[in-house]
Protein backbone atom coordinates (compact mmCIF):
# COMPACT_ATOMS: atom_id res chain seq x y z
CA UNK A 1 0.00 0.00 0.00
CA UNK A 2 1.18 3.50 -0.81
CA UNK A 3 2.42 5.34 2.28
CA UNK A 4 1.44 8.93 2.68
CA UNK A 5 3.58 11.03 5.00
CA UNK A 6 2.58 14.53 6.00
CA UNK A 7 4.93 17.05 7.59
CA UNK A 8 2.85 19.39 9.68
CA UNK A 9 2.88 21.94 12.44
CA UNK A 10 1.04 25.22 12.45
CA UNK A 11 4.07 27.31 13.31
CA UNK A 12 6.23 28.54 10.46
CA UNK A 13 9.99 28.05 10.20
CA UNK A 14 10.03 24.72 12.03
CA UNK A 15 11.40 22.66 9.18
CA UNK A 16 8.30 21.26 7.46
CA UNK A 17 9.59 22.15 4.02
CA UNK A 18 13.18 21.17 4.80
CA UNK A 19 12.06 17.82 6.13
CA UNK A 20 9.75 17.24 3.17
CA UNK A 21 12.70 17.85 0.85
CA UNK A 22 15.06 15.58 2.76
CA UNK A 23 12.53 12.76 3.00
CA UNK A 24 11.61 13.03 -0.66
CA UNK A 25 15.23 12.90 -1.79
CA UNK A 26 16.05 10.10 0.61
CA UNK A 27 13.17 8.02 -0.74
CA UNK A 28 13.96 8.70 -4.40
CA UNK A 29 17.76 8.82 -4.38
CA UNK A 30 18.75 6.43 -1.61
CA UNK A 31 15.81 4.02 -1.49
CA UNK A 32 14.85 4.14 -5.16
CA UNK A 33 11.17 4.40 -4.27
CA UNK A 34 8.63 5.81 -6.70
CA UNK A 35 7.95 9.05 -4.91
CA UNK A 36 5.32 11.74 -5.34
CA UNK A 37 5.63 15.05 -3.53
CA UNK A 38 2.71 17.37 -2.93
CA UNK A 39 2.95 21.01 -1.97
CA UNK A 40 -0.10 22.24 -0.08
CA UNK A 41 1.53 25.48 1.04
CA UNK A 42 0.49 28.59 -0.94
CA UNK A 43 4.03 29.90 -0.38
CA UNK A 44 5.17 27.19 -2.80
CA UNK A 45 8.73 26.84 -1.45
CA UNK A 46 8.68 23.07 -1.76
CA UNK A 47 7.56 23.28 -5.40
CA UNK A 48 10.18 25.90 -6.19
CA UNK A 49 12.96 23.50 -5.35
CA UNK A 50 11.96 21.10 -8.12
CA UNK A 51 10.32 23.08 -10.89
CA UNK A 52 10.24 26.61 -12.18
CA UNK A 53 7.54 28.64 -10.44
CA UNK A 54 6.31 31.85 -12.05
CA UNK A 55 4.70 34.93 -10.60
CA UNK A 56 0.97 34.89 -11.01
CA UNK A 57 0.03 37.75 -13.34
CA UNK A 58 -3.43 37.92 -11.78
CA UNK A 59 -2.48 37.96 -8.09
CA UNK A 60 0.54 39.91 -6.94
CA UNK A 61 3.07 37.91 -5.06
CA UNK A 62 1.29 34.66 -5.84
CA UNK A 63 3.08 31.84 -7.61
CA UNK A 64 1.94 29.45 -10.29
CA UNK A 65 3.72 26.42 -11.76
CA UNK A 66 5.47 26.86 -15.07
CA UNK A 67 4.04 25.30 -18.22
CA UNK A 68 4.12 21.52 -17.97
CA UNK A 69 6.80 19.90 -20.16
CA UNK A 70 4.22 17.59 -21.73
CA UNK A 71 1.98 20.44 -22.77
CA UNK A 72 1.44 20.69 -26.51
CA UNK A 73 -0.59 23.77 -27.45
CA UNK A 74 -1.39 22.35 -30.86
CA UNK A 75 -3.24 19.38 -29.43
CA UNK A 76 -4.17 20.37 -25.85
CA UNK A 77 -7.07 22.75 -26.31
CA UNK A 78 -8.86 22.16 -23.06
CA UNK A 79 -5.81 22.70 -20.89
CA UNK A 80 -3.87 25.88 -20.15
CA UNK A 81 -0.68 23.87 -19.69
CA UNK A 82 -0.28 24.31 -15.95
CA UNK A 83 -1.28 21.86 -13.28
CA UNK A 84 -1.23 22.07 -9.51
CA UNK A 85 -2.53 20.10 -6.56
CA UNK A 86 -5.06 22.91 -6.04
CA UNK A 87 -6.83 21.62 -9.14
CA UNK A 88 -8.41 18.88 -7.07
CA UNK A 89 -10.52 21.53 -5.35
CA UNK A 90 -11.79 22.80 -8.68
CA UNK A 91 -12.57 19.50 -10.31
CA UNK A 92 -9.70 20.01 -12.74
CA UNK A 93 -7.21 17.50 -14.03
CA UNK A 94 -4.01 16.99 -12.06
CA UNK A 95 -0.82 16.15 -13.94
CA UNK A 96 2.38 15.57 -11.94
CA UNK A 97 5.57 17.28 -13.05
CA UNK A 98 8.77 15.31 -13.55
CA UNK A 99 11.82 16.58 -11.64
CA UNK A 100 15.56 16.36 -12.18
CA UNK A 101 15.54 13.28 -9.96
CA UNK A 102 14.18 10.23 -11.69
CA UNK A 103 11.58 8.48 -9.48
CA UNK A 104 10.54 11.84 -8.05
CA UNK A 105 7.42 13.60 -9.29
CA UNK A 106 5.76 16.74 -8.04
CA UNK A 107 2.28 18.15 -7.72
CA UNK A 108 3.11 21.80 -7.16
CA UNK A 109 1.29 24.54 -5.32
CA UNK A 110 -0.76 27.32 -6.88
CA UNK A 111 -0.82 30.21 -4.43
CA UNK A 112 -4.12 31.78 -5.23
CA UNK A 113 -6.11 28.61 -5.71
CA UNK A 114 -4.74 27.11 -2.50
CA UNK A 115 -5.48 30.31 -0.59
CA UNK A 116 -9.05 30.15 -1.80
CA UNK A 117 -9.41 26.61 -0.51
CA UNK A 118 -7.78 27.60 2.78
CA UNK A 119 -10.24 30.47 3.19
CA UNK A 120 -13.35 28.33 2.88
CA UNK A 121 -15.62 28.64 5.89
CA UNK A 122 -19.04 27.48 4.76
CA UNK A 123 -19.66 24.18 6.45
CA UNK A 124 -20.63 22.00 3.55
CA UNK A 125 -17.83 23.34 1.33
CA UNK A 126 -15.36 22.99 4.16
CA UNK A 127 -16.16 19.33 4.51
CA UNK A 128 -15.44 18.84 0.83
CA UNK A 129 -12.09 20.59 1.09
CA UNK A 130 -11.20 18.43 4.09
CA UNK A 131 -11.85 15.22 2.22
CA UNK A 132 -10.75 16.14 -1.27
CA UNK A 133 -7.06 15.25 -1.03
CA UNK A 134 -7.91 11.93 0.61
CA UNK A 135 -10.32 11.12 -2.20
CA UNK A 136 -7.77 12.06 -4.80
CA UNK A 137 -5.01 9.96 -3.25
CA UNK A 138 -7.35 7.01 -2.97
CA UNK A 139 -7.69 6.83 -6.75
CA UNK A 140 -6.19 3.60 -7.95
CA UNK A 141 -4.25 5.48 -10.66
CA UNK A 142 -2.46 7.42 -7.97
CA UNK A 143 -1.95 4.45 -5.66
CA UNK A 144 -0.50 2.24 -8.34
CA UNK A 145 1.94 4.89 -9.54
CA UNK A 146 3.78 5.59 -6.30
CA UNK A 147 5.29 3.82 -3.30
CA UNK A 148 5.48 6.92 -1.15
CA UNK A 149 3.74 10.28 -1.16
CA UNK A 150 5.20 13.16 0.83
CA UNK A 151 3.10 16.20 1.63
CA UNK A 152 4.31 19.62 2.78
CA UNK A 153 1.72 21.80 4.51
CA UNK A 154 1.23 25.50 5.23
CA UNK A 155 1.95 26.87 8.70
CA UNK A 156 -1.66 26.68 9.83
CA UNK A 157 -4.30 24.46 11.36
CA UNK A 158 -6.66 25.37 8.55
CA UNK A 159 -8.49 23.35 5.89
CA UNK A 160 -5.36 22.56 3.84
CA UNK A 161 -3.50 21.09 6.80
CA UNK A 162 -6.59 19.18 7.89
CA UNK A 163 -7.03 17.86 4.35
CA UNK A 164 -3.41 16.64 4.38
CA UNK A 165 -3.87 14.92 7.75
CA UNK A 166 -7.05 13.24 6.61
CA UNK A 167 -5.24 11.91 3.56
CA UNK A 168 -2.13 10.73 5.41
CA UNK A 169 -1.11 7.36 6.75
CA UNK A 170 1.72 8.90 8.80
CA UNK A 171 2.49 12.25 10.34
CA UNK A 172 5.79 13.87 11.26
CA UNK A 173 5.98 17.02 13.37
CA UNK A 174 9.26 18.88 12.92
CA UNK A 175 9.79 21.31 15.77
CA UNK A 176 12.39 23.55 17.26
CA UNK A 177 12.92 23.16 20.97
CA UNK A 178 11.47 26.55 21.78
CA UNK A 179 8.38 27.91 23.49
CA UNK A 180 6.16 28.71 20.50
CA UNK A 181 7.29 25.58 18.73
CA UNK A 182 6.12 23.38 21.60
CA UNK A 183 2.76 25.14 21.38
CA UNK A 184 2.80 24.28 17.68
CA UNK A 185 3.31 20.62 18.64
CA UNK A 186 0.30 20.85 20.91
CA UNK A 187 -1.85 22.15 18.08
CA UNK A 188 -0.77 19.31 15.80
CA UNK A 189 -1.26 16.63 18.45
CA UNK A 190 -4.81 17.92 18.78
CA UNK A 191 -5.43 17.47 15.08
CA UNK A 192 -3.86 14.01 15.19
CA UNK A 193 -6.00 13.01 18.16
CA UNK A 194 -9.14 14.35 16.56
CA UNK A 195 -8.39 12.45 13.37
CA UNK A 196 -7.64 9.25 15.29
CA UNK A 197 -11.07 9.40 16.93
CA UNK A 198 -12.75 9.31 13.58
CA UNK A 199 -10.70 6.57 11.94
CA UNK A 200 -11.27 2.87 12.30
CA UNK A 201 -8.76 1.01 14.42
CA UNK A 202 -7.24 -0.79 11.46
CA UNK A 203 -6.80 2.41 9.48
CA UNK A 204 -5.28 4.70 12.07
CA UNK A 205 -3.13 7.67 11.24
CA UNK A 206 0.23 6.90 12.73
CA UNK A 207 2.17 9.59 14.48
CA UNK A 208 5.82 8.88 13.73
CA UNK A 209 6.72 11.64 16.07
CA UNK A 210 8.25 14.95 16.82
CA UNK A 211 11.53 15.59 15.04
CA UNK A 212 13.59 18.08 17.05
CA UNK A 213 15.09 20.48 14.50
CA UNK A 214 17.59 23.35 14.46
CA UNK A 215 18.87 22.11 17.78
CA UNK A 216 21.78 24.04 19.22
CA UNK A 217 24.01 23.30 22.13
CA UNK A 218 22.20 25.64 24.48
CA UNK A 219 20.42 25.05 27.76
CA UNK A 220 17.01 26.04 26.47
CA UNK A 221 17.05 23.40 23.75
CA UNK A 222 18.45 20.73 26.00
CA UNK A 223 15.94 21.37 28.76
CA UNK A 224 12.95 21.49 26.44
CA UNK A 225 13.99 18.27 24.74
CA UNK A 226 14.47 16.58 28.09
CA UNK A 227 11.12 17.97 29.21
CA UNK A 228 9.37 16.40 26.23
CA UNK A 229 11.10 13.09 26.81
CA UNK A 230 9.87 13.02 30.38
CA UNK A 231 6.21 13.54 29.59
CA UNK A 232 3.96 10.58 30.04
CA UNK A 233 2.88 9.16 26.70
CA UNK A 234 4.43 12.03 24.80
CA UNK A 235 7.92 10.58 25.26
CA UNK A 236 7.02 7.71 22.91
CA UNK A 237 6.62 10.25 20.18
CA UNK A 238 9.86 12.14 20.51
CA UNK A 239 12.07 10.74 17.77
CA UNK A 240 15.37 9.31 18.92
CA UNK A 241 17.04 11.40 16.20
CA UNK A 242 17.80 15.09 16.29
CA UNK A 243 18.65 17.59 13.54
CA UNK A 244 21.13 20.25 14.54
CA UNK A 245 21.21 23.77 13.22
CA UNK A 246 23.64 23.71 10.31
CA UNK A 247 24.21 26.24 7.54
CA UNK A 248 24.46 23.46 4.97
CA UNK A 249 20.75 22.63 5.29
CA UNK A 250 19.93 26.12 4.08
CA UNK A 251 22.78 26.43 1.60
CA UNK A 252 21.77 23.33 -0.25
CA UNK A 253 18.46 25.00 -1.15
CA UNK A 254 20.10 27.74 -3.19
CA UNK A 255 19.37 27.46 -6.89
CA UNK A 256 22.86 26.64 -8.16
CA UNK A 257 23.96 24.79 -5.06
CA UNK A 258 26.65 22.21 -5.51
CA UNK A 259 26.09 19.48 -4.55
CA UNK A 260 22.37 19.68 -5.19
CA UNK A 261 21.18 17.26 -2.56
CA UNK A 262 22.39 16.45 0.91
CA UNK A 263 22.59 12.87 -0.34
CA UNK A 264 25.17 13.85 -2.95
CA UNK A 265 27.59 14.64 -0.13
CA UNK A 266 30.11 11.96 0.80
CA UNK A 267 28.82 9.34 3.23
CA UNK A 268 31.29 10.58 5.79
CA UNK A 269 29.79 14.06 5.85
CA UNK A 270 28.35 14.72 9.27
CA UNK A 271 25.28 16.64 8.04
CA UNK A 272 24.42 13.91 5.58
CA UNK A 273 24.85 11.26 8.26
CA UNK A 274 22.64 13.16 10.63
CA UNK A 275 19.76 13.72 8.22
CA UNK A 276 20.07 10.30 6.65
CA UNK A 277 19.73 8.74 10.10
CA UNK A 278 16.55 10.72 10.71
CA UNK A 279 15.10 9.79 7.30
CA UNK A 280 16.04 6.17 7.83
CA UNK A 281 14.29 6.13 11.18
CA UNK A 282 11.15 7.68 9.73
CA UNK A 283 10.99 5.37 6.72
CA UNK A 284 11.63 2.28 8.79
CA UNK A 285 8.73 3.26 10.99
CA UNK A 286 6.59 3.90 7.94
CA UNK A 287 7.29 0.55 6.37
CA UNK A 288 7.05 -1.63 9.45
CA UNK A 289 3.51 -2.15 10.49
CA UNK A 290 2.90 -0.26 13.69
CA UNK A 291 2.12 -3.34 15.79
CA UNK A 292 5.35 -3.87 17.66
CA UNK A 293 5.30 -0.37 19.03
CA UNK A 294 4.92 -0.44 22.77
CA UNK A 295 3.14 2.33 24.58
CA UNK A 296 4.15 2.86 28.15
CA UNK A 297 0.63 3.41 29.27
Amino acid at each position, binding site marked *: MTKIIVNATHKGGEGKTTNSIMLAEYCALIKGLKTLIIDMDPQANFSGRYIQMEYDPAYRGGKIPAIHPDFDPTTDHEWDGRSSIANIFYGEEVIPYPTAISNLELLPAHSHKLQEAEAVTKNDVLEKVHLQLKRFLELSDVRSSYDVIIIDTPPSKGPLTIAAIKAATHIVIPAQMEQFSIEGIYGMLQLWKQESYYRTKDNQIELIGILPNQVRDIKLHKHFLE*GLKMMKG*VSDYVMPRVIKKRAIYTEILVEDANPKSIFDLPKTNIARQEYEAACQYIMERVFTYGKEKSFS*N
Partner: protein
Amino acid sequence: MAKKKVFQISNALTEGLEETVTAAHNYNGELRVEIIPLKKIELDPENPRDLILTFEDLYNGIDKGDKNYLRKLSEKNSLLSLSNSIKDQGIINPILVYKHGNKYRLVAGERRTLASILSDKSDIQAKILDSKPTELKISLLQWVENVERKDLSLWERLKNLEKIIYSYSTGQNIPLDEITATNLSHLLGCSLPHAMNYIAVLTADNKLKTLIQHNQLKNLEKAALLATIQSQSTKDTAIEACLAGATLKKLKGILNQEKQSKSILKQPIILKGRGRQATFVNLGTTKKVQVAKLIIDSILDNAKVTHLKPHFSELNWSDYKSINHAFKQLLETLEQIEA
Protein backbone atom coordinates in the same frame (compact mmCIF):
# COMPACT_ATOMS: atom_id res chain seq x y z
CA MET B 1 26.06 33.68 43.05
CA ALA B 2 23.47 33.73 40.31
CA LYS B 3 21.13 30.80 40.27
CA LYS B 4 21.64 28.33 37.45
CA LYS B 5 18.98 28.92 34.87
CA VAL B 6 16.56 26.10 34.21
CA PHE B 7 14.13 26.21 31.31
CA GLN B 8 10.93 24.30 31.73
CA ILE B 9 7.92 23.63 29.59
CA SER B 10 5.02 25.09 31.54
CA ASN B 11 2.80 22.81 33.57
CA ALA B 12 -0.26 23.77 31.60
CA LEU B 13 1.41 22.88 28.31
CA THR B 14 2.83 19.64 29.70
CA GLU B 15 -0.59 18.70 30.96
CA GLY B 16 -2.17 19.53 27.63
CA LEU B 17 0.34 17.44 25.70
CA GLU B 18 -0.01 14.46 28.02
CA GLU B 19 -3.77 14.58 27.99
CA THR B 20 -3.89 14.77 24.24
CA VAL B 21 -1.74 11.69 23.77
CA THR B 22 -3.60 9.66 26.40
CA ALA B 23 -6.95 10.58 24.95
CA ALA B 24 -5.79 9.66 21.45
CA HIS B 25 -4.74 6.23 22.74
CA ASN B 26 -7.92 5.65 24.70
CA TYR B 27 -10.46 6.74 22.19
CA ASN B 28 -9.04 6.14 18.74
CA GLY B 29 -11.70 4.81 16.46
CA GLU B 30 -14.52 5.60 18.87
CA LEU B 31 -16.13 8.39 16.92
CA ARG B 32 -15.81 7.02 13.46
CA VAL B 33 -18.81 7.81 11.37
CA GLU B 34 -19.91 5.57 8.58
CA ILE B 35 -22.82 5.51 6.24
CA ILE B 36 -24.95 2.43 6.75
CA PRO B 37 -28.11 1.18 5.04
CA LEU B 38 -31.26 1.99 6.99
CA LYS B 39 -32.54 -1.50 6.21
CA LYS B 40 -29.80 -2.96 8.38
CA ILE B 41 -30.81 -1.06 11.49
CA GLU B 42 -33.00 -2.68 14.10
CA LEU B 43 -34.31 -1.61 17.46
CA ASP B 44 -32.74 -2.99 20.58
CA PRO B 45 -35.50 -5.12 22.17
CA GLU B 46 -33.99 -4.52 25.59
CA ASN B 47 -34.22 -0.75 25.36
CA PRO B 48 -37.38 1.03 26.44
CA ARG B 49 -39.00 3.12 23.69
CA ASP B 50 -40.99 6.33 23.67
CA LEU B 51 -42.65 5.58 20.37
CA ILE B 52 -44.64 2.54 19.32
CA LEU B 53 -44.25 3.21 15.60
CA THR B 54 -42.04 0.49 14.09
CA PHE B 55 -39.70 0.49 11.11
CA GLU B 56 -42.05 -1.94 9.33
CA ASP B 57 -44.93 0.51 9.79
CA LEU B 58 -42.97 3.00 7.73
CA TYR B 59 -41.74 0.58 5.10
CA ASN B 60 -45.11 -1.16 4.57
CA GLY B 61 -47.53 1.50 5.73
CA ILE B 62 -49.42 1.30 9.01
CA ASP B 63 -52.01 -1.46 8.97
CA LYS B 64 -55.50 0.05 9.28
CA GLY B 65 -56.50 -2.88 11.43
CA ASP B 66 -53.72 -2.18 13.91
CA LYS B 67 -55.28 -1.46 17.29
CA ASN B 68 -52.76 1.36 17.72
CA TYR B 69 -53.47 2.75 14.27
CA LEU B 70 -54.37 6.27 15.40
CA ARG B 71 -51.50 6.61 17.80
CA LYS B 72 -49.04 5.37 15.23
CA LEU B 73 -50.43 7.75 12.67
CA SER B 74 -49.97 10.69 14.97
CA GLU B 75 -46.44 9.55 15.77
CA LYS B 76 -45.71 9.39 12.08
CA ASN B 77 -47.06 12.89 11.58
CA SER B 78 -44.95 14.20 14.39
CA LEU B 79 -41.88 13.07 12.45
CA LEU B 80 -42.77 14.98 9.30
CA SER B 81 -40.90 18.21 9.95
CA LEU B 82 -37.72 16.35 10.96
CA SER B 83 -38.12 14.20 7.91
CA ASN B 84 -38.39 17.26 5.66
CA SER B 85 -35.25 18.75 7.08
CA ILE B 86 -33.46 15.43 6.56
CA LYS B 87 -34.63 15.44 2.95
CA ASP B 88 -32.94 18.83 2.49
CA GLN B 89 -29.85 18.58 4.61
CA GLY B 90 -29.43 15.05 5.86
CA ILE B 91 -29.08 14.41 9.57
CA ILE B 92 -26.86 16.74 11.55
CA ASN B 93 -25.83 14.36 14.32
CA PRO B 94 -25.01 10.80 13.36
CA ILE B 95 -27.01 8.13 15.16
CA LEU B 96 -25.28 5.66 17.48
CA VAL B 97 -25.51 1.93 16.80
CA TYR B 98 -23.71 -1.24 17.75
CA LYS B 99 -22.98 -4.32 15.69
CA HIS B 100 -25.34 -7.25 16.19
CA GLY B 101 -24.72 -10.11 13.80
CA ASN B 102 -24.99 -8.58 10.37
CA LYS B 103 -27.38 -5.92 11.63
CA TYR B 104 -26.91 -2.75 13.61
CA ARG B 105 -28.83 -2.17 16.82
CA LEU B 106 -29.86 1.31 17.72
CA VAL B 107 -28.47 2.97 20.84
CA ALA B 108 -29.45 6.56 20.17
CA GLY B 109 -31.29 8.27 17.36
CA GLU B 110 -34.62 6.50 17.05
CA ARG B 111 -36.47 9.58 15.78
CA ARG B 112 -33.70 10.44 13.35
CA THR B 113 -33.76 6.90 11.98
CA LEU B 114 -37.54 6.80 11.61
CA ALA B 115 -37.58 10.24 10.00
CA SER B 116 -34.86 9.18 7.57
CA ILE B 117 -36.92 6.17 6.51
CA LEU B 118 -39.87 8.49 6.12
CA SER B 119 -37.87 10.81 3.88
CA ASP B 120 -37.16 7.89 1.54
CA LYS B 121 -33.45 7.81 2.25
CA SER B 122 -31.73 4.48 1.92
CA ASP B 123 -28.84 5.12 4.28
CA ILE B 124 -27.83 7.14 7.31
CA GLN B 125 -24.70 8.39 9.03
CA ALA B 126 -23.92 6.38 12.13
CA LYS B 127 -21.28 5.96 14.75
CA ILE B 128 -20.67 2.26 15.10
CA LEU B 129 -19.64 0.48 18.26
CA ASP B 130 -18.39 -3.08 18.24
CA SER B 131 -20.68 -4.23 21.00
CA LYS B 132 -23.56 -3.12 23.13
CA PRO B 133 -22.35 -0.19 25.22
CA THR B 134 -22.89 0.14 28.93
CA GLU B 135 -24.42 3.28 30.40
CA LEU B 136 -20.91 4.28 31.39
CA LYS B 137 -19.62 3.86 27.88
CA ILE B 138 -22.41 5.98 26.48
CA SER B 139 -21.75 8.82 28.87
CA LEU B 140 -18.02 8.55 28.19
CA LEU B 141 -18.63 8.82 24.47
CA GLN B 142 -20.71 11.91 25.10
CA TRP B 143 -17.82 13.26 27.12
CA VAL B 144 -15.24 12.63 24.43
CA GLU B 145 -17.46 14.29 21.89
CA ASN B 146 -18.27 17.21 24.11
CA VAL B 147 -14.75 18.07 25.19
CA GLU B 148 -14.07 18.65 21.53
CA ARG B 149 -16.72 21.32 21.56
CA LYS B 150 -15.25 24.46 22.97
CA ASP B 151 -18.65 26.09 23.32
CA LEU B 152 -19.65 23.77 26.13
CA SER B 153 -19.79 25.54 29.48
CA LEU B 154 -18.04 24.31 32.59
CA TRP B 155 -21.44 23.62 34.10
CA GLU B 156 -22.48 21.43 31.20
CA ARG B 157 -19.24 19.53 31.44
CA LEU B 158 -19.77 18.98 35.16
CA LYS B 159 -23.27 17.66 34.60
CA ASN B 160 -21.87 15.23 32.09
CA LEU B 161 -19.16 14.16 34.51
CA GLU B 162 -21.66 13.50 37.27
CA LYS B 163 -23.38 11.07 34.97
CA ILE B 164 -20.10 9.35 34.19
CA ILE B 165 -19.11 9.04 37.81
CA TYR B 166 -22.53 7.79 38.74
CA SER B 167 -22.61 5.10 36.06
CA TYR B 168 -19.06 4.10 36.90
CA SER B 169 -19.92 3.80 40.55
CA THR B 170 -23.00 1.69 39.96
CA GLY B 171 -21.40 -0.36 37.20
CA GLN B 172 -18.31 -1.23 39.21
CA ASN B 173 -20.11 -1.41 42.50
CA ILE B 174 -17.78 1.14 44.00
CA PRO B 175 -19.39 3.55 46.44
CA LEU B 176 -19.46 7.06 45.02
CA ASP B 177 -17.25 8.52 47.69
CA GLU B 178 -14.47 6.08 46.95
CA ILE B 179 -13.98 7.18 43.39
CA THR B 180 -10.61 8.83 43.13
CA ALA B 181 -9.06 11.30 40.79
CA THR B 182 -6.95 8.41 39.49
CA ASN B 183 -10.09 6.49 38.53
CA LEU B 184 -11.41 9.55 36.81
CA SER B 185 -8.22 10.29 34.95
CA HIS B 186 -8.19 6.74 33.59
CA LEU B 187 -11.82 6.95 32.63
CA LEU B 188 -11.56 10.24 30.81
CA GLY B 189 -8.08 9.76 29.48
CA CYS B 190 -7.00 13.01 31.06
CA SER B 191 -4.08 13.85 33.31
CA LEU B 192 -4.26 13.34 37.05
CA PRO B 193 -4.09 17.06 37.93
CA HIS B 194 -6.91 17.70 35.51
CA ALA B 195 -9.04 14.97 37.07
CA MET B 196 -8.26 16.36 40.51
CA ASN B 197 -9.50 19.73 39.40
CA TYR B 198 -12.75 18.22 38.23
CA ILE B 199 -13.27 16.36 41.44
CA ALA B 200 -12.51 19.45 43.47
CA VAL B 201 -15.15 21.37 41.55
CA LEU B 202 -17.69 18.56 41.75
CA THR B 203 -17.38 18.65 45.52
CA ALA B 204 -17.57 22.43 45.69
CA ASP B 205 -20.14 24.15 47.87
CA ASN B 206 -23.40 25.52 46.53
CA LYS B 207 -22.23 29.09 46.30
CA LEU B 208 -19.44 28.16 43.90
CA LYS B 209 -21.68 25.84 41.97
CA THR B 210 -24.24 28.56 41.48
CA LEU B 211 -21.55 30.83 40.09
CA ILE B 212 -20.51 28.10 37.71
CA GLN B 213 -24.07 27.39 36.74
CA HIS B 214 -24.64 31.02 35.84
CA ASN B 215 -21.44 31.04 33.85
CA GLN B 216 -19.85 33.66 36.07
CA LEU B 217 -17.09 31.22 36.83
CA LYS B 218 -15.97 29.54 33.64
CA ASN B 219 -12.44 28.39 34.20
CA LEU B 220 -11.85 24.93 35.62
CA GLU B 221 -8.49 25.67 37.22
CA LYS B 222 -9.79 28.75 38.98
CA ALA B 223 -12.94 27.00 40.12
CA ALA B 224 -10.91 24.09 41.46
CA LEU B 225 -8.61 26.40 43.34
CA LEU B 226 -11.54 28.24 44.91
CA ALA B 227 -13.25 24.99 45.80
CA THR B 228 -10.33 23.80 47.84
CA ILE B 229 -9.92 26.86 50.02
CA GLN B 230 -10.75 25.90 53.57
CA SER B 231 -11.18 29.19 55.35
CA GLN B 232 -14.47 30.85 54.52
CA SER B 233 -13.08 34.37 54.69
CA THR B 234 -10.18 33.61 52.36
CA LYS B 235 -12.60 31.93 50.05
CA ASP B 236 -14.87 34.95 49.93
CA THR B 237 -11.93 37.23 49.20
CA ALA B 238 -10.71 34.91 46.48
CA ILE B 239 -14.14 34.56 44.89
CA GLU B 240 -14.52 38.31 44.82
CA ALA B 241 -11.11 38.70 43.21
CA CYS B 242 -11.95 35.99 40.71
CA LEU B 243 -15.21 37.64 39.69
CA ALA B 244 -13.28 40.88 39.25
CA GLY B 245 -11.11 39.08 36.73
CA ALA B 246 -8.08 37.99 38.74
CA THR B 247 -5.71 35.59 36.99
CA LEU B 248 -5.02 32.11 38.28
CA LYS B 249 -1.62 33.29 39.46
CA LYS B 250 -3.15 36.12 41.42
CA LEU B 251 -5.66 33.78 43.04
CA LYS B 252 -2.86 31.46 44.06
CA GLY B 253 -1.18 34.49 45.58
CA ILE B 254 -4.20 35.21 47.75
CA LEU B 255 -4.15 31.62 48.88
CA ASN B 256 -0.48 31.62 49.72
CA GLN B 257 -0.87 34.72 51.79
CA GLU B 258 -3.19 32.79 53.98
CA LYS B 259 -0.59 30.06 54.19
CA GLN B 260 -2.82 27.34 52.97
CA SER B 261 0.40 25.53 52.34
CA LYS B 262 -0.90 22.03 52.24
CA SER B 263 -2.97 22.82 49.23
CA ILE B 264 -5.36 19.98 48.67
CA LEU B 265 -4.66 20.22 44.98
CA LYS B 266 -1.38 18.48 45.55
CA GLN B 267 -2.76 15.33 47.12
CA PRO B 268 -5.04 12.82 45.49
CA ILE B 269 -8.52 13.96 46.25
CA ILE B 270 -11.37 11.67 47.03
CA LEU B 271 -14.86 12.57 46.03
CA LYS B 272 -15.98 13.16 49.59
CA GLY B 273 -19.27 14.62 50.53
CA ARG B 274 -17.95 17.67 52.33
CA GLY B 275 -20.22 20.51 51.34
CA ARG B 276 -21.28 18.71 48.23
CA GLN B 277 -24.94 18.17 47.80
CA ALA B 278 -25.56 14.48 47.36
CA THR B 279 -27.97 13.90 44.52
CA PHE B 280 -28.67 10.28 45.09
CA VAL B 281 -28.57 7.57 47.74
CA ASN B 282 -26.27 4.59 47.50
CA LEU B 283 -27.90 1.53 48.99
CA GLY B 284 -24.62 -0.22 49.53
CA THR B 285 -23.40 -3.67 48.64
CA THR B 286 -23.45 -7.07 50.27
CA LYS B 287 -21.82 -10.36 49.56
CA LYS B 288 -24.52 -12.29 51.35
CA VAL B 289 -27.29 -13.47 49.09
CA GLN B 290 -29.61 -14.09 52.06
CA VAL B 291 -29.35 -10.43 52.98
CA ALA B 292 -30.17 -9.35 49.45
CA LYS B 293 -33.09 -11.78 49.40
CA LEU B 294 -34.36 -10.46 52.71
CA ILE B 295 -34.28 -6.89 51.41
CA ILE B 296 -35.95 -7.69 48.12
CA ASP B 297 -38.61 -9.89 49.71
CA SER B 298 -39.40 -7.21 52.27
CA ILE B 299 -39.84 -4.62 49.58
CA LEU B 300 -42.02 -6.95 47.56
CA ASP B 301 -44.32 -7.26 50.56
CA ASN B 302 -45.15 -3.60 50.15
CA ALA B 303 -48.60 -3.17 48.63
CA LYS B 304 -47.29 -0.83 45.95
CA VAL B 305 -45.15 -3.52 44.41
CA THR B 306 -46.54 -6.88 45.44
CA HIS B 307 -47.79 -7.31 41.90
CA LEU B 308 -44.15 -7.65 40.85
CA LYS B 309 -43.63 -10.78 42.96
CA PRO B 310 -44.13 -13.23 40.10
CA HIS B 311 -41.26 -11.56 38.23
CA PHE B 312 -38.91 -12.43 41.05
CA SER B 313 -40.05 -15.99 41.53
CA GLU B 314 -37.77 -17.18 38.77
CA LEU B 315 -34.78 -15.18 39.88
CA ASN B 316 -31.58 -17.18 40.04
CA TRP B 317 -30.44 -16.51 43.60
CA SER B 318 -27.06 -18.07 43.04
CA ASP B 319 -26.06 -15.52 40.42
CA TYR B 320 -24.95 -12.15 41.74
CA LYS B 321 -25.39 -10.51 38.36
CA SER B 322 -29.03 -11.48 38.01
CA ILE B 323 -29.73 -10.31 41.53
CA ASN B 324 -28.06 -6.97 40.83
CA HIS B 325 -30.02 -6.61 37.67
CA ALA B 326 -33.31 -7.50 39.30
CA PHE B 327 -32.72 -5.13 42.19
CA LYS B 328 -31.87 -2.34 39.80
CA GLN B 329 -35.11 -2.91 37.97
CA LEU B 330 -36.99 -2.96 41.21
CA LEU B 331 -35.45 0.39 42.10
CA GLU B 332 -36.34 1.81 38.72
CA THR B 333 -39.93 0.66 39.09
CA LEU B 334 -40.11 2.20 42.53
CA GLU B 335 -38.73 5.45 41.16
CA GLN B 336 -41.45 5.49 38.54
CA ILE B 337 -44.14 4.74 41.08
CA GLU B 338 -42.91 7.49 43.37
CA ALA B 339 -42.27 10.00 40.58
